[in-house]
């Protein structure tokens, strides 16, 4: 017996987009939670990485309104440990990109305080712009 749990319409569209952009098959996830347990930034996320996958697969609403994929910096801790070899960082990357395409930049560079800019390592700013702006 096969049970297909897929949402139709917009949510299905989002899932397909995420899968295309990330190159990952979300159906492969068996929800063991290793990613969430490994994530050093889980405490700052509003939904664990496993739950993000679940919400996407079930077509639950408002995934793009979550903060989790902005919090993920792609440290690859979960990726190393995923027993299903899913590159969760790429899923988060895909969500960031979709959000930026739909809603614009997540970081307004012109509003960063001058005092911080005076000291920051260039790599911090470059990385932040690459992850948060289109």
């Amino acid at each position: 017996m096969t049970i297909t749990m897929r949402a139709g319409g917009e949510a299905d569209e989002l899932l397909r987009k995420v899968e295309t952009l990330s190159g990952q098959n979300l159906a492969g996830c068996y929800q063991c939670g290793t990613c969430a347990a490994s994530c050093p930034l889980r405490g700052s996320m509003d939904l664990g990485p496993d739950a993000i996958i679940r919400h996407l697969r079930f077509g639950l609403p408002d995934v793009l309104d979550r903060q989790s994929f902005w919090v993920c910096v792609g440290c690859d801790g979960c990726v190393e440990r995923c027993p299903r070899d899913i590159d969760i960082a790429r899923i988060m990357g895909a969500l960031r990109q979709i959000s930026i395409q739909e809603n614009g930049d997540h970081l307004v560079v012109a509003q960063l305080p001058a005092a911080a800019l005076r000291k920051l390592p260039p790599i911090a700013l470059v990385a932040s712009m690459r992850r948060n702006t289109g």
Partner: protein
Amino acid sequence: MTMTEQAPMISMELMGKHYSVPSGLTIMAAIEYAGYKLVRGAGCRGGFCGACPTLYRRDDSHRIFTALACQTLVEDGMCLVQMPFVPLMTKPYELQTITPQPNTLLQHFPEIAGCVACNTCTRSCPQGLHVMDYIQAALRGDVERAAMLSFDCISCGICSSRCPADIKHYAVGLLARRIYGKFGTPLAPDLSARVAELVAGHYQGALDELVAMSPAELRARYEQRSFEAVADGGETHSATKSYNSPVDPVDFQDEIEV
């Protein structure tokens, strides 16, 4: 000019309309030949002011080409438009209050962190400058290199209009040069000495005397002048010693081959 009257006619497409113009004209002269009275799009007419940035296509390439209308010959089949200007807004700064740090340029222009190294700016620069390299130098705080590489910039803004990261290259280069000019080179020692002399009124008497002289007296003085180059037996100040020479001269080879 007689040459243009004899020159074979070619076809150019200006803002969507075809015009037949003599070959051998600059793009600017061709636009005027076609009947346009330029208000925007012309300035010094000699390649120094950046008022005439032009975008064009050719049928042998998929790319957009860029040029200064006053410095580029019109070509048969060229499809072109002039850009009035590229909007620029920068936050005001006071150079006097800046203390140069590695992040000074990044602080004033954080958007340079968005450079993806696509090099579109460099390819679009009508001066042939290595624009991307000077933005990269700015990103890592190398003010001297940013200043040297951007020195020949005429602020036409083409780079900025083409940049996917919306960088204001010419403004970055300008600040780099001002910081380098003010802080990166030693103050001229003779100059401050001379200014001090002037402030102390050292030359008042001699100048009073000269101002009061009749033309005949002045002529006599003038004829008696000694000449430095002769007196010193040649050049003492050679341009090759210049501190401010381009570290990486523009690669003109491409332009020569075209």
